[in-house]
């Protein structure tokens, strides 16, 4: 069904208007885009507003530990081939931010929505999605988030009654566990470099066996499902066995995986892989991520990596040594205040790169790199790191609030 055929009831309309007004005030006060405060005001006036707004849309939910903002963007681009799209493209992925984004798209056919992992079950209940894309689950902010396997369990319970087509990564045992309670699953072999959160069978606790790309539990028989879509190097294989080349501007294996999952989502809505992929090629950067910016006469590529799985994928896409690398880590509220996770990142993979370390927690990084036997320089800030870096494009890898600090400093 396309478009907004039934008008919202008066209270819901008032809520949308009040939310927009609050957002405008927030923007004027210089406190960000205002989408979250706007959504909060609107939800307070009309608690079922999210469901009402979603009623008129074909809703697609996207959740994961890593890649959800990028994949939401790729799916939105692909589905524009079939109709207008509204999306929370800025990454405001909790109910208030989602409500605010949907309130802005009255003539859309599709609502492509990134959802924070902890809120997926609730948002899926409220919005009755047509499709749900589940990309990966791994350790992230353990000082404040739920435990990873519990999150998979929470997804599994939340999705068991859903009518949505679930597009799920067959290579992540936790995602497979979460999705396999759904009656209608499209499995995508999207790959996953990080394996250290799924050595224990999510079903029975047995030790997982992982020969090659396969995986199975030796005790209960829980195993990798046969995928109908697959990422194969630079190609996505569709269910008919056709191989479509992927020519994204976005770098790295993880983004090709995101594109493969996005193509599978687009196919649910009748958009063929070739059309979907070509639209995805237009995406250059997502909320500043992967952007190449000029700073002090140098080219910097800005890369966001928030957790061990993200750092692992990021190390695989940076330019070869001796490309200089700047690392920045903070531990503010949104990052998680415990930096222990740095020790799950294999920094020996940076051997040969000149390394410059900045951010609130640069000393944690310094000890980490010292123990990994890397040479590095600790710098006061980005300016100093860039001045000290040898020639060439600089890869800058930062976690969440450190990345925001970077964007602010380089004016991105």
């Amino acid at each position, binding site marked *: 069904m396309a478009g907004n055929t039934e008008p919202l009831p008066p209270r819901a309309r008032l809520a949308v208007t009040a939310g927009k007004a609050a957002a405008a005030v927030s923007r004027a006060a210089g406190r960000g885009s205002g989408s979250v405060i706007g959504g909060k005001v609107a939800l307070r006036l009309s608690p079922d507003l999210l469901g009402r707004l979603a009623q008129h849309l074909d809703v697609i939910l996207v959740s994961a530990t890593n890649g959800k903002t990028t994949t939401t963007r790729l799916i939105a681009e692909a589905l524009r081939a079939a109709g207008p799209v509204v999306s929370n493209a800025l990454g405001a992925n909790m109910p208030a931010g989602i409500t605010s984004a949907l309130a802005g798209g009255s003539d859309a056919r599709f609502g492509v929505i990134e959802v924070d992992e902890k809120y997926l079950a609730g948002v899926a209940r409220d919005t009755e999605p047509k499709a749900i894309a589940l990309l990966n689950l791994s*350790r992230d902010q*353990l*000082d*404040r988030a739920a*435990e*990873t*396997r*519990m999150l998979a369990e929470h997804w599994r319970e939340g999705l068991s009654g859903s009518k949505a087509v679930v597009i799920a990564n067959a290579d992540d045992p936790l995602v497979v566990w979460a999705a396999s309670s759904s009656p209608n699953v499209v499995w995508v072999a999207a790959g996953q470099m990080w394996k*250290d*959160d799924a*050595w*224990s069978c999510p079903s029975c*606790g047995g*030790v*997982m066996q992982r020969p090659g790309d396969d995986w199975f539990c*030796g005790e209960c028989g829980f195993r990798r499902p046969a995928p109908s879509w697959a990422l194969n190097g630079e190609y996505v294989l569709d269910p008919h066995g056709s191989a479509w080349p992927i020519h994204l501007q976005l770098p790295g294996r993880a983004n090709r995986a995101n594109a493969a999952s996005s193509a599978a989502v687009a196919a649910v809505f009748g958009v063929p892989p070739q059309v979907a992929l070509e639209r995805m090629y237009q995406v250059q950067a997502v909320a500043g991520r992967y952007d190449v910016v000029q700073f002090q006469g140098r080219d910097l590529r800005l890369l966001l990596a928030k957790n061990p799985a993200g750092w692992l994928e990021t190390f695989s896409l940076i330019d070869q040594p001796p490309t200089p690398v700047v690392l920045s880590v903070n531990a503010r509220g949104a990052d998680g*205040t*415990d*930096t*222990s*996770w*740095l*020790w*799950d990142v294999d920094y020996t993979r940076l051997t040969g790169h000149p390394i410059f370390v900045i951010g609130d927690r640069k*000393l*944690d990084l*310094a*000890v*980490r790199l*010292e*123990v*990994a*036997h890397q040479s590095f320089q*600790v710098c006061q800030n980005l300016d100093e790191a860039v001045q000290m870096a040898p020639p060439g494009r600089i890869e800058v890898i930062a976690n969440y609030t450190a990345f925001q600090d970077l964007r602010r400093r380089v004016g991105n």
Partner: protein
Amino acid sequence: MSDNSLRLVWVYPDLLSTYGDQGNALVVERRARQRGLDVTRIDVRSDQPVPTSGDIYLIGGGEDRPQRLAAERLRRDSGLARAAGNGAIIFSVCAGYQILGHEFINDLDQRQPGLGLLDVVSTRGEGERCVGDVLGDIDPPLGLPQLTGFENHQGITHLGPTARPFARTRLGKGNGTGDGTEGAYNDTVFGTYMHGPVLARNPQIADLLLRLALDVNALPPTDDRWYEALRSERITAAQQPA
């Protein structure tokens, strides 16, 4: 130590390596190599036997269900208990610490037997999780500087007569018993709630484990300036109001 190679055993990374505690193994290995020692690091998965001939065993923290599975498998295997009987040095963190005690409360809310290598019993607190930076004074006979670490747990650990408190907290909850104790130890077995990882925040504890394993009183000095800088930053930060 056998064959001039220090055997460093990292126990059950498939179950108990969730909170960055494998950093403890990395720190011990690095500091041993800096002293010219050859190190064999052995990572033992929970479907493999725990070797009994290790010099130092490290066990980390994990989630509630993996903790139960780890305790079951370690008791069935018995390698770690035999290694302890041989006088091996064992250093454990959080869920691993609870497993080394007599019993703990598992994910099914049942009392579950541990290995009994430390004279402690753990229960689960009713209140909020203990999450945040910790500062403490390590038990004076060990002769070590201040303890800094990060705790993230809901456990309460009571010490029996043959376990000594590893530290007294100045800030943070530690054992959660309200008496200011943190961790526990006897001659060769250590337990703590501290992440960080704790040996990266406190390299002198890593050196203590090496001294005990090598049976020496002192080790050649290392360049610890980054550890010292991190320690003083974290100790200062812990004392700032949040």
